[in-house]
């Protein structure tokens, strides 16, 4: 066995190990969803058991899954659209008409992501109360869009930087106004980048739990709230919680899996050309 071969084997082994470690909780959750509540808490845990669908039935009976799912889809989708609509012109200006402060503005925007959300819980709660945004889709859309805006601007900025400025200048000579430059040149040229930015934003919105739990109660609740509603302070709930969680993450998992090429390509930025 050559040295190269050995290295490759080791890296493959390591990759599998990491993958299994990451995947195991998900796998366990999937299994637990098919157990009875008592089986779910026996020790040692049983790996072989008679699978049952009773948890799924119970979950479907107790809550309107499709309402939650629709809320998740709608809120993630629209929030992503809103942040793209704000971020594309912003990133265009920063990438092609930079000022002395552009770099620091970008850093500052990103630094707002380091603030723990709890820090602004009270002000946002009060704002929502006074503006009647509590438990509305539009409320969550605003919060999600703004929450992801720094990352979206930053990613788009990086993608736009890769578009040669002469191409846009040629467009300007050809009579393109800024909106034409965006619509006819920049957006089509960086479509793969925009797509992966949108994907990431959708995933972040879908998985967001903090704000959705605080700001919604029934009408606008997304799937994260759906999961939470199955944990209870007493009684056995692990199997039902697992079933609910599986149902909540299944759509985004499938979605992510189908678009993983796009995602990986986008997330590695220009590093791999």
């Amino acid at each position, binding site marked *: 066995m050559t040295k190269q071969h050995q290295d490759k084997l080791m890296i493959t082994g390591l990759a599998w190990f990491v993958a299994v470690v990451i995947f195991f909780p998900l796998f366990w959750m999937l299994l637990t969803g098919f157990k009875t509540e008592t089986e779910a808490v026996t020790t040692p845990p049983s790996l072989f058991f008679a699978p049952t669908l009773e948890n799924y039935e119970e979950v479907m009976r107790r809550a309107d899954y499709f309402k939650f799912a629709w809320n998740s889809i709608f809120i993630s989708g629209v929030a992503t659209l809103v942040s793209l609509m704000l971020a594309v012109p912003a990133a265009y200006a920063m990438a092609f008409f930079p000022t002395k402060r552009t770099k620091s503005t970008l850093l500052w925007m990103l630094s707002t992501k380091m603030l723990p959300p709890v820090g602004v819980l009270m002000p946002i709660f009060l704002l929502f109360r006074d503006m009647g945004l509590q438990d509305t889709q539009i409320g969550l859309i605003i919060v999600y869009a703004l929450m992801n805006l720094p990352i979206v601007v930053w990613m788009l900025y990086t993608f736009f930087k890769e578009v*040669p400025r*002469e*191409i846009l*200048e*040629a*467009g*300007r*000579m*050809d*009579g*393109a106004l800024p909106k*034409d430059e965006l619509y*006819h*040149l920049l957006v*089509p*040229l960086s479509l793969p980048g925009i797509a992966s930015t949108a994907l990431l934003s959708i995933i972040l919105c879908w998985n967001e739990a903090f704000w959705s739990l605080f700001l919604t109660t029934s009408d606008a609740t997304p799937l994260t709230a759906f999961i939470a509603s199955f944990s209870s302070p007493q009684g056995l709930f692990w199997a039902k919680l697992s079933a609910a969680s599986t149902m909540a993450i299944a759509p985004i998992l499938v979605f992510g899996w189908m678009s993983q090429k796009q995602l990986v390509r986008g997330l590695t930025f220009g590093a791999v050309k």
Partner: protein
Amino acid sequence: MATVSLHNIRKTFGETDVIKGVDLDIADRDFTVFVGPSGCGKSTLLRLIAGLEDITSGTLQIDGQDVGDMPPAERGLAMVFQTYALYPHMTVADNMAFSLRLAGVSKQERQAKVRDAARILQLDQLLNRKPKELSGGQRQRVAIGRAIVRSPKVFLFDEPLSNLDAALRVQMRLELTRLHERLDATMIYVTHDQVEAMTMADRIVVLQAGRIEQVGSPLELYHHPRNIFVAGFIGSPKMNFFPSEVTAAGGPTTTVTLPGGGTVAVPVEGGHLRPRDKVTVGVRPEHLICGDDGQLKGEVLVVERLGGGTFLHIEVAGGEQIVVQASGDNPARTHDRIAIQVAGETCHLFDETGKAVPRAQRHPLADAKRGGRSDG
């Protein structure tokens, strides 16, 4: 009709002055070439005219109209970039039609104009290809085609040939010259290749460090450079320079010393020169003659044979190195000692500030238009 005039144009980027006051009038249908060393501001000047950069101060007029505050597209110019800057996601035809589409020209008219341009540039067969499916020369043609379809008042070119290989460059140079004749349009062309400048230009503008050193026809710059910089920049190989001293002045010629003690009488209008004045003598390699006898003597250091001609690099007295362009069958070899004749009529004199002393006789071709083209 399209004239371009610049009055006291300045451009600063932050703290740095890049264009330091440029005055220039470009005549209708002239082919004007900006040359100068790298970083002298050629591209910046072109981009100022194009409207891609804002003018810091000064006025820019096209056809007598102030265009300083006008967006690029309204100035009626078209630009060809060094990197071609084609729209990668559009076909050749769409690339060329883009400006027309933005201007709301009907599809029929667009197609007709694209077809015309494609015919001129021999792109007929390539209209449905994407830029990445084209060779460098073809891409350059598309970039030119994109400019042609707009029927601009003025064409701007920023080193359009520098990404092409040598053979293609020569071919495209000819095509551009023919295109200029055919379209009869005003063209401004930036290059640092002085062969391009000499062969294509009606007028050359020599820039250095953001200032114009001289404007003139190619042969005017060649025969009557206004200062040492222009003399050294125009012509290849470069003009030879020697430090020298005036020995006799006042007559129709001014006699100056050469390295090694020889002298040469140069026909210049040197009325202000006095004996003992320090001057610089300049003489081009192609004007020096190797022979058995001559005012300069030296040792051959390197022989470069090009077939048709030979460049002899020679060290003369005082350690000065000069280049002589001899015939292709010159037998000189390394370490040979040879003599060089310096003819006074071919010499240039520059005073201590580097300014040229005017030559007594104006060269007959210095004021002629390129290729014997008549005015009007």
